[in-house]
């Protein structure tokens, strides 16, 4: 079975830094960035992309639709 590839993106401008996603990530792949976005907020970033399984709990928890997850067969 081809390896499932996952692409998770956080829109760092849309993110308001509420950090609700960080706590629900089962593999602790998310962290608050030290940078500041246009909004003057430290957005959450996918610190450990290799850990992300694309489970979507973070996207579920995001009040601002800032997280998108793509999934596909073979090379991502």
């Amino acid at each position, binding site marked *: 079975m081809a390896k499932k590839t996952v692409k998770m993106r956080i829109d760092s401008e849309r993110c*308001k830094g509420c950090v609700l996603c960080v*706590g629900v990530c089962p593999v602790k792949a998310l962290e608050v960035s030290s940078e500041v976005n246009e909004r003057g907020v430290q957005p959450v970033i996918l610190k450990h992309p290799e850990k992300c399984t694309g489970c979507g709990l973070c996207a579920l928890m995001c009040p601002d639709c800032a997280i998108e*997850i793509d999934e596909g067969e073979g090379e991502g």
Partner: protein
Amino acid sequence: MAKKFAKPRSMKDVATHYCPGCGHGLIHRLVCEVIDELGVREDTIAIAPVGCAVLAYDYWDFDTMEAAHGRTPAVATAVKRVHPDKLVFTYQGDGDLAAIGTAEIIHTGSRGENLSVIFVNNGVYGMTGGQMAPTTLLGQTTATSLFTRRAEKEGFPLKVLEMMAVLPGVVYLERTSVHSPKEILNAKRAIKKSFQTQLDKKGFSMVEIVSPCPTYWGLSPVKSMERIEKEVVKEYPLGVVKDVGLVSS
């Protein structure tokens, strides 16, 4: 690459004005996901409240109108009577529904109007600066209950769903929350059931969604979710309050 998770089609691609961690953002998305799944975006008419969510029409990509504060169910009643084949729902906060609009919500339920109500219970008046609401918990400090809410002076938190349950015209009532992925999925299921109840012409249904207001609870978004789990649900227990069993799921 297939899209596994993305902004629902019924949601406009704009940033919202809601505070970081506000439950409205989540609930707006759940409503839109349900509307997408039911394929009714083009047949939906929503009535927004006066409150933080008054700007819902900036975020929803379906017909949405305003109502005077508290009169949302009356406006929805008329819209549904004029367009019985459209999906009509109100989206109201606790001030709009449980304070100034108490008569309207009770009589809309009592008439058994075939429409859905999304009732966001975040325990305060957000738009106006965090005042006490009918749903403020005993012991909770707000802009107008500075010495905490005391039963002997400020009375008791109001349980609208439990009051509505005795009305024969009301067929489905459930209280849900958004304080965890599990609860979010459950809230979505309840919203979908309420909309399906309406599409099946079964009568009045209402989903209460306990929601965080980090700004006026004076807590971080994460702590606000914890507060719901530890405190709010004690006063406002989650679960089905009434279901006359007309709809599957």
